[in-house]
């Protein structure tokens, strides 16, 4: 018989180690599909590692990929802390990018030190506002935010396509549905010449620190955590639950919006409707791997980015389908979900007792 016993205290080292073990387990399980696709398993791992960490260029790719994931991971984890299930980071990313492009592609001309805060603010407002609607529908009308945020992703993506084929289309874009490029004042500079890593990474790291301090030190953070632990107890303790949900929604949406800003202003330079290969959804994996902690988000985002970048280069080198990266990420989520059980419970193997009386006594 297997029994779960709740743990009274969890050492933080143990809580930190488990997601890492989960990530490694997922990579090990990936051997099965790699072998099934006819790849040499050990060589494949070598390629993944080299593709992710093997050169300055690989590291730059890795960190460029991790940047939006830090933002969306933070967005999802802040909301999940309050048990506000924001599955709409993907849509919030796109409206953030759209707002940044609307402000930063020539509509306003100002020096960079004004322009960059301005496009960040625009993206945060757009993302936050988009998350406000499902939050209000939840608190006012009881509509499940999982479904509403999810469905809004599709609406937003279509809206972005509509804008890129219509009013915001770049007339110089050779007919491609893409926005006008960001002006140079509205561009986040690259950190090193000829590499894709840009200052959005620094903004992401600063955001993680801000969120960390907010969650740990501020009244807001306390209210958010209390609401997530137990809504009715929080209400009873006099915490304004509704306004806490609204705050959390705004913060979460704003963070996801920043992901979009950083991608258009730092990486792409203009907006297309395929700017995100699901960064919003991957943010859920990042947040779960991180155990919803802001520091964990940075580590988890780098891990997931390494999987994507490494697996991409492996799939090119070995001819294994590139969906292997998505597969490893999905398996990581399931592994971390299972391992979260070990954080909350001790698992005891109990020998079934012979006599029913003794069994009763033990229970």
């Amino acid at each position, binding site marked *: 018989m297997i029994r779960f016993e709740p743990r009274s205290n969890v050492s933080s080292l143990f809580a930190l180690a488990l997601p890492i073990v989960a990530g490694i387990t997922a990579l090990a399980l990936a051997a099965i*599909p790699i072998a*099934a*696709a*006819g790849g040499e398993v050990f060589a494949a791992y070598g390629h993944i590692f080299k593709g992710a960490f093997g050169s300055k260029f690989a590291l730059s790719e890795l960190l460029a990929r991790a940047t939006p994931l830090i933002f969306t991971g933070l967005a999802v984890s802040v909301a999940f802390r309050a048990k506000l*299930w924001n*599955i709409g980071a993907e849509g919030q990313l796109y409206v953030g990018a759209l707002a940044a492009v609307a402000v930063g592609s020539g509509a306003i001309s100002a020096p960079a030190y004004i322009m960059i805060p301005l496009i960040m603010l625009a993206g945060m407002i757009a993302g936050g506002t988009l998350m406000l609607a499902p939050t209000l*529908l939840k608190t006012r*009308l*009881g*509509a*499940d935010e*999982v*479904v*509403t945020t*999810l*469905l*809004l992703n*599709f*609406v937003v993506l*279509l*809206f972005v*396509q*509509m804008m890129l*084929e*219509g009013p915001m289309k770049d007339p110089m874009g050779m007919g491609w549905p893409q926005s006008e490029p960001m002006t140079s004042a509205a561009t986040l500079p690259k950190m090193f010449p000829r590499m894709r890593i840009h200052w959005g990474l620094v903004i992401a790291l600063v955001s993680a620190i801000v969120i960390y301090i907010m969650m740990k030190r501020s009244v807001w953070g306390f209210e958010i955590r209390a609401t997530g632990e137990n809504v009715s107890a929080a209400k009873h303790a006099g915490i304004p639950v509704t306004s806490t949900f609204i705050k959390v929604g705004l913060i979460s949406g704003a963070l996801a919006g920043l992901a979009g800003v950083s991608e258009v202003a730092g990486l792409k330079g203009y907006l297309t409707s395929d700017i995100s290969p699901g960064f919003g*959804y991957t943010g*859920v*994996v990042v947040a*779960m791997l991180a155990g919803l902690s802001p520091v964990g988000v940075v580590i988890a985002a780098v891990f997931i980015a390494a999987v994507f970048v490494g697996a991409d280069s492996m799939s090119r080198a070995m*001819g*294994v*389908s*590139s*969906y*292997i990266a*998505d*597969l490893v*990420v*999905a*398996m990581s*989520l*399931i592994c971390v*979900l*299972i391992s*979260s*059980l070990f954080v909350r419970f001790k698992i005891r193997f109990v020998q079934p007792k012979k006599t029913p009386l003794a069994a009763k006594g033990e229970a």
Partner: protein
Amino acid sequence: MEYIDILLSANFWAAAIRIATPLIFGVLGALVCERAGVLNLGIEGIFVVGAMCGWMAVWLGAGLWGGVLIAALAGAFFGLLHGILTVPLGLSQHVSGLGITMFATSVSYFTYRTALPKVSSPPRIEAFQPLDIPVLSDLPFIGPALFQQTSMTFLALAMVLLVSYVLYRTPLGLAIRAVGDNPSAVEAQGLSVFALRIGAIMAGSALMALGGAFLTMSAFDAFFFGMINGRGWICIALVVFASWRPGKALLGALLFGAFDAFQIRLQNEVGAVIPSQVFLMIPYLLSIVALVLVARKADYPRALLQPYFRGQR
């Protein structure tokens, strides 16, 4: 007026029923899971698995009904995974469901790409053809609208009857509904909450997979990436709209199909003025509106989202 002409054409209603068919499977599947107390957000991925497995089974020579069976089994397998994660382990149903969606989707795409690495145009199978029922198909209006559908549409309609019969007329159905409302009472009756919930999730997921299989084996004859395109999520919204009743689920799916078919035809008329994306947005917005309209009076299964541990409460 043209709009009336659209609504009066048999062709329009035939399309409405065709569009509704995968949704009927999906809503029924989600409904069965939720009636047993477990939200299954794996639906989007299970649609992909059903579409891919059904198609591939036929492509490898299993025959059409063999494909249907294999799609259902594949769906049940992912349902089992979701069941184990959420029922005995009691993990977050939201996150587990999303994990299943990601896993099922990527595993399907990976398998498809691995089996067919270098094909630019997807191979096609001999899909289900519209039935030609002797007398009924020749009826005016109703014939072409209802009786020239494929067998899978009739399977979907039969499933509505089967699910409502099982849920409301059998002891098993009573137990499933009870386990979604008050699991400790079910346990007190000497029934296994675990077995009932996991069984319901597997059955529900098998139904969802059939919705996906309909797309590759009946609506189209090939599998392509991104073909599910949010249909699963719409089913999750439709379950709330249907207030967890199979009859209303059928109605909701048909309304949705009719609306979708209508907007496609409308698009041809006024497409020059209004961008096509506006029309494509409408199903999602409509789902949100439906969700909001019924959210307040929705009669949720009372134990939905709550894990049950033996001896607790």
